[in-house]
């Protein structure tokens, strides 16, 4: 438990198969067998991926001993998306200030400021 939660989520989703599994689970809960079916992999391989996703808090498994369907923790997943969205809004806010500044600048301005010679 050294990595922080968000890093864990990012690395859990760094794998394309795991992203596929998350996309599949976004539609609804599924068993390991159901998840393994579309891939050319064993149930064991899918179980390994699920362990990583579980460790990152992105999925959970019910206690129903027979089927143990896998459930996407949509709220956790949304949290990560929101975090990126916040970063996006921060950049957008900065660039809107730049929009305003660009409107005040003459159109024929040089791309580089004049050389100042001596370091300031």
């Amino acid at each position, binding site marked *: 438990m050294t*990595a*922080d*939660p*968000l*890093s864990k989520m*990012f*690395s859990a*989703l*760094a*794998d*394309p198969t795991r*992203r596929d599994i998350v996309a599949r689970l976004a539609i609804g809960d599924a068993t390991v067998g159901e998840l393994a079916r579309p891939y050319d992999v064993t149930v064991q391989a899918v179980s390994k991926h699920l362990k990583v996703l579980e460790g990152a*808090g992105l999925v959970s498994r019910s206690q129903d001993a027979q089927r143990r369907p896998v459930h996407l*923790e949509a*709220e*956790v997943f949304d*949290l990560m998306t*929101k*975090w*990126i969205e*916040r*970063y*996006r*809004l*921060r*950049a*957008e*806010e*900065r*660039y809107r*200030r*730049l*929009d*305003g*500044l*660009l*409107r005040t*600048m003459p*159109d024929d*301005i*040089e*791309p*580089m*400021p004049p050389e100042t010679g001596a*370091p*300031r």
Partner: protein
Amino acid sequence: MTTNTHETEIISDPDVPLVRIIRGFDAPREKVFRAHTDPELVVQWLGPRRHEMRIDHFDCRTGGSYRYLHVSDGSEYGFHGCFHEVRPSETIVQTFTYEGVPDGVALERLVFEDTGDGRTLLTSTSLVDTFEGRDAFVASGMEDGLREAYERLDELLAG
């Protein structure tokens, strides 16, 4: 590609520790470029809204360097880097370090693309050496939001 919208697009690559920001501007690229190279202009838009931005030095040319501070409530946050390659109106390749994490460094590439009609598409890509570093980079300057996110996450994981 979005041609009509100005909105910022973020790409957080799952395979390589980079973050890419794409944004269109309703101005020719000479102007957009100048706003990135002239310290008197940079200071007017680059800093976060809540902080005052103070430039220590800003020598935007190949082989030059920069350092600036964000100041708020008596706290100073320093940032510095080198301009590795500056090609007027086209490209800026630079390094970026937040002085709170002095060993961390991002390699940034800003590409200014003329999309016609006097418009510019700016693509800025920041590459760091680990995913943890990338995530910290995305989180930099948004400590409040992140703390809140961690708290909520702890609650969710505990529940």
